[in-house]
């Protein structure tokens, strides 16, 4: 029943703190162009587009895929918009894969983005859910207590977090598109 699915091509923009040279559409098109080129395809060969983005408040655009339809070559095609919070990049791939596995489409473009420099991510993450006390401290305000609890329970020595960061920065330096290029960093 399930059709096999494979990755045909990938495209990534150079990650950096600000891309003031392009619009949101320009940034997304850059990644899409690279992906279809690496697959030996053109955007016209794509049957459906899946856009991943979370949350909308990062750019200050409600359901930005509607405005991006033209830039992504999605006009006249199915366009799905995935939002699963922090897992959205991976979930976008899962949804695109399901569309192929279900036999609905042959070639699906999965694209996820953030252009945090367009808005204020700290504000966007300072949410106030009903019946909860707002932390008003961005993502760090939510994660720091979890990490502190983990350190206390596990007795993890204080350099463990830094070890992970060093490993990631050294690996990241092997990827020319990574934001941080710190191949020489040490503990």
């Amino acid at each position, binding site marked *: 029943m*399930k059709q096999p699915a494979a990755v045909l091509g990938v495209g990534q923009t150079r990650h950096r703190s600000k891309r003031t040279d392009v619009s949101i559409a320009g940034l997304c098109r850059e990644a899409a162009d690279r992906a279809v080129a690496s697959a030996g395809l053109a955007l016209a060969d794509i049957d459906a587009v899946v856009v991943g983005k979370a949350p909308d408040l990062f750019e200050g655009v409600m359901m930005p895929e509607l405005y991006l339809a033209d830039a992504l070559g999605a006009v006249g095609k199915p366009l799905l918009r995935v939002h699963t919070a922090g897992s959205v990049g991976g979930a976008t791939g899962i949804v695109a894969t399901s569309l192929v596995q279900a*036999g609905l489409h042959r070639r699906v473009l999965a694209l996820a983005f953030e252009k945090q420099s367009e808005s204020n991510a700290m504000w966007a993450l300072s949410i106030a859910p*009903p019946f909860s006390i707002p932390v008003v401290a961005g993502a760090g305000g939510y994660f720091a207590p979890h990490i502190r609890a983990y350190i206390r329970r596990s007795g993890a020595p204080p350099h463990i977090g830094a070890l992970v960061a060093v490993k990631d920065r050294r690996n990241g330096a092997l990827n020319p598109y990574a934001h941080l290029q710190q191949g020489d960093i040490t503990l």
Partner: protein
Amino acid sequence: MSADVAVVGFAQSPVRVREDATTSGVEMLVPIFAEVFRACGLTKSDIGFWCSGSSDYLAGRAFSFVSAVDAIGAVPPAMESHVEMDAAWALYEAWAKVLTGEAEIALAYGFGKSSGAELRRVLALQLDPYLVAPLWPDSVSVAALQARLGLEAGRWTEKDMAEVAARSRAEARSNPDAQVSGSVTAAELLARPYVAEPLRAHDCAPVGDGAAVVIIASAARARELCERPAWISGFAHQVDSGSLGARDLLAVPSAAGAAAAAGAGPVELAELHAPFSHQELLLREALGLGEGVAVNPSGGALCGNPMFAAGLARIGLAARAVMSGRASRALGHATSGPALQQNLVCVLSGEAS
């Protein structure tokens, strides 16, 4: 399609301005989950895949759909996904999941507290963020431009639009979930003031809060859950340009394209997601619905349009008509974006293919 999948259950909350419901959707979802589970004889542990549709901008905060998971219960972990779209598209994702064979029974739900802010201004933020949104063209004004174009092109009159509204309100008298209903003539409606010329209040969907849920199942399970499942014979969606000046606002190619891709064919009943009266006229034409088709026997979105749930509710209502035997073939439609930019068609049949 390689496998048969059917709608086996549907429930929706009454569309109202809900002072008692928060933006998390939980207060609106818990009762309708209970209702649909009871009707299908299911519990939450029977659901293999959950998919929801809602909006952070409607709730006014990031990650708002996460709170709605409280209506499911996060333990044990569930296979779950979310679209920032009307939940009709969540149902589409759930349908694909059942087609892959990864789930036998899937549930799609949508919720929206449209009354949480000034909806027409919130929706202005769906437009091009650099060139259009800074001018704050609100959703009613954008629809009014479309209605004006149709009037000037001789495609419809204000009386035609009022007749859509009058018929919808009359139909909604038998729908207890409708927010607006009643007996009123087109002439009476035309005597009322404009909201955004040429649109009057009756031409615009009311702002209301609500939620909807649809359960689908593979052929292997559908017949045991439902006496007369509503088989999904076609399901497709398309999007048009996001640039209002780049598309013909009097054509809805994405609706026509979705209907063609879904193999819509003749139907007896259609539930159309037309938040403005003239949009029902546009959609009837784009979807090729003749005079004999019963359009919006529920009253349609003009009588209740909970954002991000109303499209899913259209499919649920069309499916209910098939499940109850009132129709052998019905069409559910959903729209998203300004001036009918994005459209989805789901065709439901009493017969498996």
